[in-house]
């Protein structure tokens, strides 16, 4: 397993999708810096990084797996290993760790951008409504990382299903932009079924905001704890489905 992890990390770093993802993060945060008025919640949500990290991860995850098929290297990978699970897990872990790296990068970016745009206006350790900005930022990024676990599973499942990067990226964008509103609309339309509908996977997107904004619980109808558990469980379910498809996929 260790060798598999090392190999996957090596490939991941050399493929430079890691760098590309970071670049996208940089551009999108800069964009929101330049186009939006910067207030406290801009800082809490890391200049939009919270929304963009999952989009980057779904694209990177799909690309990182599909390239093995595109380059025909999957044949080598599979025959040199007895365990397909090992290959799959190594890839999963590498992409998930990358999402943590992106979250850390987002913290740095937030510090940097706030220093450039609103120097001295907000104090990271000052209390606003019982929280410091720093703890809220960290909590939001923690939510984003949990959501990324879900996203990596989804990304792997989708790429095994549709076998085309662009399709998976589009699904990722649609999810990011309409997922939450679609989920709330769904629960509004069928108020009697909220008990079941609140567990729909689209609802999990609230995890990256609700942890610092209790009011979102009214939209998601889930407690923080429920939300975290459900997100992780969905990540595992998608991951397992992806693994099943991976095992059956012909080379």
């Amino acid at each position, binding site marked *: 397993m260790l060798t598999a992890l090392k190999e996957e990390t090596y490939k991941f770093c050399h493929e430079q999708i890691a760098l590309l993802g970071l670049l996208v993060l940089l551009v999108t945060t800069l964009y929101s810096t330049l186009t939006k008025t910067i207030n406290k919640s801009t800082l809490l949500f890391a200049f939009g990084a919270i929304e963009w990290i999952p989009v980057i991860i779904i694209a990177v995850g799909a690309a990182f797996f599909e390239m093995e098929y595109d380059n025909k290297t999957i044949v080598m990978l599979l*025959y040199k290993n007895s365990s397909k699970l090992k290959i799959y897990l190594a890839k999963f872990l590498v992409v998930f760790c990358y999402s943590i790296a992106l979250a850390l990068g987002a913290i740095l970016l937030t510090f940097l951008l706030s220093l450039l745009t609103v120097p001295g206006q907000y104090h990271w350790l000052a209390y606003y409504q019982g929280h410091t900005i720093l703890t809220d930022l960290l909590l939001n990024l923690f939510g984003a990382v949990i959501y990324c676990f879900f996203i990596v599973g989804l990304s792997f499942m989708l790429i095994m299903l549709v076998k085309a990067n662009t399709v998976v990226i589009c699904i990722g964008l649609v999810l990011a932009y309409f997922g939450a509103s679609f989920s709330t609309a769904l629960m509004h339309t069928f108020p009697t079924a909220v008990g079941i509908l609140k567990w729909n996977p689209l609802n999990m997107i609230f995890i990256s905001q609700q942890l610092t904004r209790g009011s979102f619980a009214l939209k998601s109808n889930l407690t923080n704890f429920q939300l975290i558990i459900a997100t992780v469980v969905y990540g595992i379910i998608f991951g397992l489905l992806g693994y099943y498809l991976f095992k059956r996929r012909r080379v």
Partner: protein
Amino acid sequence: MKNSQEVLELDNVCTYIGRTEIVKDASFQIKAGDIIGLIGPNGAGKTTVMKTILGLTKFTGKITMSGAAITENNHHALEKVGALIEHPAIYPFLTGEQNLELYSHHHQDMVKIISELGMDSYIKSKAKGYSLGMKQKLGIAIALLNNPKLVILDEPMNGLDIEATIGVRKLIKKYADRGTAFLISSHILSELQKVMTRVLLISGGKIILNQSIGQFEAISHQKYKLTTENDEQAEHLFKTKGINFKKQKQYLIVGQEDIFKIQDELAKKKLHLKEMLPIEANFEQIVVDTLNKERD
């Protein structure tokens, strides 16, 4: 250091893709130092046979490598197998050398293979800029890493120029002399004819012939070319006696089966043979003939 140690054995192997049986009851052995040519038309199942050996498909029957079983979920026996299947497996964002390093256990060996294949000049540049032939060579190099006991090459001469083809052929022979066994499929039949020690003909998923190259050439219709003192007279004679012949340049081409009859008839007419030589077997024709016979 040739010996007849058995490397790979297939016993009644059937391969399935979905519910379709692609490889039908294949049984054969490969011994150390063998160079097996796996030959058959498009869609015959050559690639599928190779993938099956590599544990990449569902199959029934038994495959063993030096006695250890290979299954879909146990590839330990494949440790000493190198392979190039259909397309070279190359990460374009790595250099040729980095691609090799991903699999190589012995740096020194790797360096040797690089120079044996004449890849020194570009091995340190990114593989995405490689030509078809350069990629192909890199794929072959990957298959030769780590002193494999068996090397499986699917159409290895694909995209190689004449010089490279000769180089690869020499390399294959060199490794085989040291005891490495090869299973090679190719459409460039004349290329394989020059290296292989055994022929496996495959058609419609069935192995229809498994012979040493010597046996194979012997069963083929050997043709002879001859000239006589007076070829016009000879031609007339052959026509009247119902002997099939073809004219080719200054020679008359006849089949082996008519040789005795021809000698008799010419002797009767006091026509002397000036020259009679066997023609080297036309390999591609042999393959086509054998496949046609099988179909009838």
